[in-house]
């Protein structure tokens, strides 16, 4: 038995199937998704526990399809009365809305009734007591490192464990479950000098505790990041080369993936309209999706319609080969589902252009800006207009000269994609995305001049 879950697989399966059966009694086809999650979390700062949490949550969501119409309803209760109410509400909605020929369950032959599903659960100690010990250990190390440098002060250290169970049932007889786990640690470091204060953090997230980055490494990294950010100043407005470190590079990939999502496409809310078969990025770039990586943070054997994804190219040599489609968005676009009703699985960006490790990437940048943080800003999904307040370093001759803040970067995402010179070998996994740093030759930097 898991440490944090209080319902078992059979209970979730029963609730999902019961909901589908009740909808069937009213003449509807249906899909029911039941989720249950347990959490243990502790935050420690300066040796004191700031917050300890131990909680559970659950939800049942039902979508019914009736006479070409659909309705959705959800509840936090699994009892029969709550499920009956949800069925009634979903049917009521289906009776009110206009028909949509694209709203239906996927064809049964697309469902992954059986077959391999990637491992999403790692057996690890996840009790509230285990989190308390982990957070204390991380806080102790962070405090020791902070004590070694008068400019540093330890912020909070957090240990978080989550276990989740999911059951999906449909009118076509599909009923499968998935067990997931997630372990996270992060620590915050503050640095201060005459120029002011800055905070930075380092985190690790995995599906099992053994794979987490060691507390010493996390704390040292957070300290190094905070220390390096001291003395930051603006640079004057100019056009220059920009190197996005892996953390910020992952954000850029997420924006591109959002534009290739089925809902963005059929709503015309994408800066990459009608992209399949079109070259939208530099020809040396590949973006691959892999749903099946064991213990991958965005792995899954099937989506919330019961359809499996596939290991495939999203971009090959800069050309779009695939979108992220559910059966609904697929029908709107005249295409088949790609098993991405819940968004993208694990993504990896690679380049065939000349590249190297972090130091080599700095040399390739030569003179320009390294971006380590997006402070905030927006991408206009319709036009691709992209503008961000950023923080990072100024680099001359391949060497970091000083930290930079109070500057902006602006451009359009399509232009940025075309202008990527290379992707570094300094690959990091940031959630669902694997990427090295991204080098773009020419961007508009805004600063005090």
């Amino acid at each position: 038995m898991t440490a944090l879950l209080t319902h078992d697989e059979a209970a979730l399966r029963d609730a999902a199937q019961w909901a589908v059966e009740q909808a069937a009694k009213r003449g509807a086809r249906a899909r029911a998704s039941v989720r249950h999650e347990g959490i243990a979390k502790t935050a420690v700062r300066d040796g004191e526990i700031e917050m300890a949490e131990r909680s559970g949550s659950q939800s049942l969501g039902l979508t019914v399809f009736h006479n070409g119409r659909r309705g959705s309803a959800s509840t936090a209760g699994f009892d029969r009365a709550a499920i009956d109410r949800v069925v009634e509400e979903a049917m009521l909605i289906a009776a009110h809305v206009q028909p949509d020929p694209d709203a239906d369950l996927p064809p049964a032959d697309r469902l992954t009734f059986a077959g391999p599903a990637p491992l999403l659960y790692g057996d690890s100690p996840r009790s509230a007591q285990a989190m308390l010990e982990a957070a204390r250990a991380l806080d102790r190390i962070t405090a020791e490192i902070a004590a070694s440098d008068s400019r540093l002060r330890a912020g909070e250290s957090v240990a978080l464990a989550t276990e989740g169970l999911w059951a999906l049932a449909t009118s076509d007889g599909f009923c499968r479950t998935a067990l997931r786990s997630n372990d996270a640690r992060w620590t915050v470091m503050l640095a201060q000098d005459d120029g002011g204060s800055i905070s930075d953090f380092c985190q690790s997230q995995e599906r099992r505790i053994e794979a987490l980055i060691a507390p010493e490494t996390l704390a040292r990294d957070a300290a190094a990041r905070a220390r390096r950010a001291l003395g930051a100043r603006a640079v004057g407005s100019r056009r220059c080369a920009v190197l996005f470190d892996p953390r910020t590079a992952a954000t850029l990939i997420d924006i591109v993936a959002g534009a290739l999502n089925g809902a963005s496409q059929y709503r015309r809310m994408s800066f990459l309209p009608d992209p399949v078969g079109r070259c939208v990025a530099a020809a040396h770039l590949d973006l691959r999706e892999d749903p099946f990586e064991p213990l991958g943070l965005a792995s899954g054997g099937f989506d919330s319609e019961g359809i499996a994804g596939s290991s495939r190219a999203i971009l090959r040599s800069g050309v779009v080969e695939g979108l992220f489609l559910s059966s609904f968005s697929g029908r709107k676009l005249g295409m088949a589902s790609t098993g991405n009703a819940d968004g993208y699985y694990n993504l990896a960006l690679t380049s065939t252009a000349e590249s190297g490790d972090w130091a080599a990437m700095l040399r390739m940048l030569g003179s320009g800006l390294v971006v380590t943080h997006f402070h905030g800003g927006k991408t206009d999904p319709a036009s691709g207009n992209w503008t961000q307040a950023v923080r990072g370093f100024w680099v001359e001759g391949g060497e970091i000269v000083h930290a930079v803040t109070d500057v902006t970067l602006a451009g359009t995402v399509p232009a940025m994609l075309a202008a990527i010179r290379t992707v570094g070998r300094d690959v990091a996994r940031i959630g669902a995305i694997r990427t090295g740093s991204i080098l773009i030759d020419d961007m508009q930097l805004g600063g005090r001049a």
Partner: protein
Amino acid sequence: MNGGDIALDRARARLFEPAGLDEAAIGRALGELAGGGADLADLYFEASSTRSWQLEGGRVSQGMFAMRQGVGARTVHRGEVRFAHSADIRPGALLDTARAVRTLAPGGDVQRHSPGVALSRRTAGHTLYPALDPVAVTDATAWIAILERIDERARGQDHRIVRVDANVRLTDTTVLVADADGLLAGDVRPMTILSMIVIAEQGGRRARGQAGLGRRAGLDGFDAAAIDAMVATATRMALNNLEAIPAPVGEMPIVLGPGYPGVLFHEAVGHGLEGDHHRKHLSAFDGKMGERIAAPGVTVIDDGGIPGRLGSLGIDDEGTAPDRTVLVDDGVLTGLMQDRLNAGLMNARSTGNGRRQSYAHLPLPRMTNTFLANGQADPTDIIASIDRGIYATEFDGGQVDIVTGRFNFTTIEAWLVEKGRLVVPLRGATLIGVGHEALRHVSMVGNDLALDSGMATCGKQGQSLHVSVGQPTLRIDRMMVGGQAS
């Protein structure tokens, strides 16, 4: 009327009866919760339901209903917070949740016998919003007709409007706070949010416009004139953005229009004046109480008691009636926003700013309705005073780094101003600054104070809440504008 006995009656009907719960059971659970020794112990019950209807491609073919309930149990012991939440609020489960909190103490603590708490304290009623339930109306015909009218009117405004998406979301939330000091208080919080996005296309160019209305009301809070004005705002924004040129880059004077641009003060001032950031000495405003932090004429207020606003609360999520807190008075830092935890540790009193996203989240010091007070200047004079700069009327949210005070926000509707005249619309640009520096550069404050249209939300530590922001037209002499034009 709302709050007081009315809200307690509603809470009994929504929460107690389905779960077989009564005050004695809550008192026992509180005793269990506080029995390990606590400076503060409370239970926060919540029942909510939501109904939404979505218009896409000219048709309302999607709808959604959601219901949930649960309880959050918390203790604070010398600043140490222990928390558990559960969707099951039946008496046995409630005791289990309270015990789960006690087991979070180092070494655990489940042995001591604890007497129950007598819940004898009550709060007064309020008239900020009615105790109505917008979700109870199951007939969607009227709302569907409104959504279809939005589609028709938006497309009718201009042939370049090629896509309209609109959504209405009706929410009924009933909350109940019970604490170890004997308080039992409730509130009924109705909410209706109508929002739309339009896409305009011309000659291969595409642009977006958006608008919305949020009210603590039901259908009768949305008259045709307000809806038509919303449609006009969204379509105007999309058509302007179709013509927009790249924004300039560099430091320049800016004029911010009335209403939502007040998000500037929410980010640049408000977050830095939340009690938790001061207790932990993290805020860039730490230690500056009583000092001048802004130009004279700059008065910033957080007021949770403005009728009908989504940031307003009859009681906060700890049972405290909200204050009107003057944060900055004529340029001088005068106030902080507090919840019970941080007020208790700072020897202050709660200002009724203890808010949480749901029972599954911990209360934090949060803003309610935060705005810059009116000044004297005529808005047209403010624009006319600009030789070269930008005039921004709508923003797409913003962020602040509490530690450094650096904030940013991104325009979705702005114009280039030259010689006191609006010249051409500008594409989205991110404006950046440091809170205390920007405040000193406020040189003109208009007399046209307005609050946002009811769409403002605020995120903090992963919790999202509805707030209001507002301001009159104002001029800031120097701000960094990050556009694409070189």
